[in-house]
C-alpha cells in the first residue's frame, strides 16, 4: 500500500537526515583546527552559522507554512546541508567556510520543522503523536550511528572524510524523501493560504504571539535550555579535571546513553502524550533538570555523570516529542505550525546561550557547585511555571470524515 511505503520513507528520512546533521558540530572545529585556524576565527565562522539560523528560523517557518507541498522544504534542507559538507570538503578557505556556514544555518532552521510538517500532512492529527515519537526514535538511532562512524572516520581516515561522507549521505536522504507520497488518507491540514483571505499576515502572526499558551510554553522552553545546555559541558570538564584518564571513554559513553534512551522512549512519550495529555509528560521531562543539577552539585563523580545523563535522556525524549506536539495543538486551526516551531527554535537558541554564559560566569565566580545549583534553579523555575501556568493543549481531534474529497490536493 502506498501509505505504508510513505511511512517507511519517513522512517528512513529521519534516520538519514540525522546522519547528515551529525556530520557537523564538533567535526568543524576539529577540521578547521587541523587547517591551522585560530580558535577565535573558528568561533567567528560558527557564530555566522548560528546567527543565520536564528534570524531565519521564523521567516523560514512562515514560508514553509505557505507551501502546499512541505516536502520541497525538506528537499531544500537536505540538499543545502550536503552542499555545505561539499564546500567544507573541497576547500577550507575563509570564503567557502563562511558561505558554508550561511547555507548550513539556513538549512538547519528549515529541516527539522519541515519534517514535522511533512509528518503532519502524511498522518494527520489523530496519529501525529505516535508518529512524532517514532520519528524521534529513528533520528536518535541515525544520530548515534553517525556519531560513531564519523568519529571513526575522523580519527582513522581524516576530518575531510567526514565531510565527504556527510555529503554522500544526502543522497539516501533524498531517496527516502521520494518514497513519501503526498499523504491525504482522510487527513487534512489547514494551509495558511486558506485563512489568509480573512486575515492579513501580520494580524495572524500577532494573534498567534498573543496566545497566552504559546507565550507560557516559550518561557518554559527558554528555562529548559537555560538549565540544560551548559549542564553536560560543565560536568564533562569536571571529569577531565578530576579523572583525566577516564575522560575520553566516559564522556563518549555519556553522549551515547541519552541517545539510546531517546530511541527507546520517544514512541512511549508520543503515545502517552495522547493518553495522559501533554502536561503530565512535560512535567516529567522538565523535573529531571533540577534533579541533575542538584546531583552534580552534591557529588561530581563519574557515577553521578552516568545517572544524570540517563535523566537527561528522559528529558530529551520528552522535550523533542512534546515541543512538536504542543506546536501542532496550538496551530491546528490557523495552520501556522512551522512559524510556531520557528519561534520555539529561537527560544531554544536564546535559552542555550544564556545557559553557557551564566554557567561560565557562575563557575568562575562561585565555583562549579554553585553553577550547577544555578542551572538546577532555572530548571526548577521552568518546571514550576509549566505546572502552575501551562494549560493542557491536547484535545482529541474529531474522527476524520470518510469523504476523500477533503484530501489535501498536492501534486507529486
Amino acid at each position, binding site marked *: 500500500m502506498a501509505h505504508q511505503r510513505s511511512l517507511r520513507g519517513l522512517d528512513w528520512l529521519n534516520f538519514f537526515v540525522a546522519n547528515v546533521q551529525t556530520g557537523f558540530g564538533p567535526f568543524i572545529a576539529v577540521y578547521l583546527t587541523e587547517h591551522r585556524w585560530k580558535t*577565535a576565527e573558528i568561533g567567528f565562522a560558527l557564530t555566522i552559522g548560528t546567527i543565520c539560523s536564528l534570524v531565519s528560523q521564523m521567516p523560514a517557518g512562515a514560508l514553509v507554512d505557505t507551501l502546499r507541498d512541505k516536502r520541497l522544504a525538506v528537499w531544500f534542507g537536505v540538499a543545502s546541508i550536503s552542499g555545505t559538507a561539499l564546500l567544507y570538503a573541497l576547500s577550507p578557505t575563509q570564503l567557502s567556510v563562511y558561505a558554508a556556514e550561511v547555507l548550513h544555518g539556513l538549512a538547519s532552521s528549515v529541516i527539522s520543522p519541515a519534517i514535522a510538517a511533512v509528518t503532519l500532512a502524511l498522518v494527520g492529527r489523530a496519529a501525529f503523536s505516535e508518529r512524532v515519537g517514532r520519528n524521534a526514535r529513528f533520528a536518535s538511532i541515525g544520530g548515534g550511528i553517525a556519531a560513531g562512524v564519523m568519529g571513526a572516520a575522523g580519527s582513522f581516515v581524516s576530518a575531510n572524510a567526514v565531510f565527504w561522507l556527510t555529503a554522500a549521505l544526502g543522497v539516501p536522504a533524498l531517496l527516502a524523501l521520494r518514497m513519501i507520497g503526498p499523504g491525504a488518507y482522510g487527513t487534512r491540514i489547514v494551509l495558511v493560504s486558506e485563512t489568509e483571505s480573512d486575515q492579513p499576515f501580520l494580524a495572524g502572526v500577532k494573534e498567534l504571539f498573543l496566545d497566552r499558551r504559546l507565550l507560557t510554553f516559550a518561557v518554559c522552553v527558554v528555562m529548559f535550555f537555560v538549565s540544560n545546555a551548559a549542564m553536560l559541558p560543565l560536568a564533562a570538564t569536571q*571529569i577531565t579535571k578530576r579523572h583525566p584518564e577516564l575522560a575520553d571513554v566516559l564522556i*563518549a559513553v555519556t553522549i551515547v546513553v541519552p541517545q539510546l534512551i531517546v530511541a527507546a522512549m520517544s514512541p512511549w512519550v508520543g503515545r502517552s502524550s495522547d493518553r495522559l495529555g501533554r502536561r503530565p509528560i512535560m512535567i516529567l521531562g522538565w523535573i529531571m533538570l533540577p534533579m541533575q543539577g542538584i546531583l552534580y552539585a552534591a557529588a561530581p563523580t563519574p557515577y553521578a555523570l552516568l545517572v544524570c545523563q540517563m535523566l537527561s535522556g528522559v528529558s530529551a525524549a520528552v522535550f523533542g516529542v512534546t515541543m512538536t506536539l504542543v506546536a501542532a495543538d496550538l496551530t491546528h486551526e490557523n495552520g501556522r505550525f512551522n512559524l510556531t516551531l520557528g519561534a520555539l527554535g529561537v527560544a531554544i537558541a536564546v535559552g542555550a546561550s544564556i545557559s553557557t554564559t551564566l554557567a561560565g560566569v557562575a563557575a568562575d565566580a562561585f565555583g562549579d557547585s554553585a553553577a550547577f545549583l544555578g542551572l538546577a534553579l532555572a530548571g526548577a523555575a521552568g518546571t514550576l511555571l509549566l505546572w502552575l501556568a501551562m494549560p493542557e493543549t491536547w484535545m482529541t481531534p474529531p474522527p476524520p470524515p470518510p469523504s476523500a474529497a477533503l484530501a489535501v490536493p498536492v501534486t507529486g
Partner: protein
Amino acid sequence: MARDSIVTRTIVALVTIMLVSAVPMVARAQDKPQATATSEFSGLHGVFGEHVKDLNGDDAGRLWDILIDDAGKPRAAVIDYGGALGVGQRKVAVGWDLLQFVAADAKTPIHLALTMQQLGTLPEFKYGTEPAVVGTGQ
C-alpha cells in the same frame, strides 16, 4: 529597470571583490623566495595541534598554542586535553621548561614533565588574562 541595475551592480561588485582578493595570492606566489637548501633547516617540525605525552607516557592532549614574551622567546605552552567529541576539554598553561622535544620518539616527540592528574589542578587558561603557569617558564 532600477532593480536590474542594482542586480548588475551587485554582481559587478562581487566579481570585483573576488578578483581583488585573488591578487595578493597571485602576488605571493610570484615573489616566493628561492629556497635555500642548507642542512641547517632540515628535519624541522610543525608543533601546533601535535599530541603531547605525559609523565606516565599517556596521551595528554594537544599542544594548542605557545605563549611568548616581548623578546619573542617562548615562555609557556597551552595544552588542550581531556573530553571527547568536542565536549569537556580544558586548556591549561604550563611553563615552557616542562616540555621536552624528544627526537628519538618519532610518533609523539613532545613530552610533558607532568601527569594528566596534575593538569587537573591548574586553572583553565583564557586568552587575555594573566596565565597561571607552573614551572619556571625558562
